[in-house]
């Protein structure tokens, strides 16, 4: 663990809980390549029947928004409540919204 450059790269893990649901981010694993990442993700995150499908993505491939831009990016939405889907009722039999 001393030499960081010798560690396997990090992969972000996404699990689909069941058919119809989206893949959801659950955590990360270290692995040498994509195949090993899927095996490690399977062994780490689906031991208790959590999923029916897995995605792994190299963490380095994720581009994040700059926390410094948070005000410009997200705060303008705060006073625009008319954009929220709260003004109509959802029929009872529609799930997963």
């Amino acid at each position, binding site marked *: 663990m001393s030499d960081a450059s010798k560690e*396997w790269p990090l992969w972000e893990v996404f699990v689909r809980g069941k058919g119809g649901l989206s893949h959801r981010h659950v955590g990360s694993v*270290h*692995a040498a390549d994509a*195949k090993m990442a899927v*095996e*490690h993700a399977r*062994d780490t995150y689906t*031991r208790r029947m959590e999923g029916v499908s897995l995605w792994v993505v190299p963490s380095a491939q994720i581009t994040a928004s700059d926390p410094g831009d948070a005000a410009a990016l997200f705060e303008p939405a705060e006073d625009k409540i008319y954009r929220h889907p709260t003004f109509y009722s959802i029929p009872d039999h529609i799930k997963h919204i």
Partner: protein
Amino acid sequence: MADAPPPLAACALRLGDDALILGQRLSEWCGHAPAIEIDLSLANVALDQIGQAAHFLGLAGEIEGKGRDADKLAFHRDVMDFANCLLVEQPNGDFAQTVARQFLFSHYQELLYAALAESKDARFAAIAAKALKEVKYHATLASDWVVRLGDGAEESRARMIAGLDWMWRFADELFAADEIDAALGLDKAALRSAWDARIDAVLADATLERPAAHRPVLGGRTGRHSEHLGHLLSEMQFLQRAYPGAAW
């Protein structure tokens, strides 16, 4: 040695002991594996094996009909009463040696369970059919590691070769059949060519040669074990020996 059990009970014992001893061996890695992901992966395989052992030993006790359950069979028998093959009791060594053992055994176990799932005895067939999915994954996992280590760096390759060399002499015992296997209609020798083909394909992928032929070592099925098993049992059975019947 206790009275010889009925042949079908002996069959279930062999299957259960293989899984139990391998599961115990693998669990020794818990907290010691080269990476936390591998730690979890080995622990998963260990738990799958121990789950299978519970089923097969439970069945062995049931057929035997002397009131021994899976726990009794696991924790209150001595070395010479264990019927596991010698391969599964071999020490973990380094990670490559553990991978070598898993590789040789999981492919055998997968072929065996596939045959067993078609058995005329519904009890054996049910356990094997359920466990087959688990074992398929173990075989894939172990094969992947053989290729990674064998076709990897100079050191990983040297260790993979040494690991296979250690385990190879115990492979013949897996397919040595006797009248006890015949009781279940199992033709273990018939699995050999399929096993050879699988092993050779992975070794070719890993750019490895088959280890040189060793004189095969036999005896596990009849209770003649290596010195390693006694040490394993003393750890595994300690609690039930010290506090018989302890439960939680």
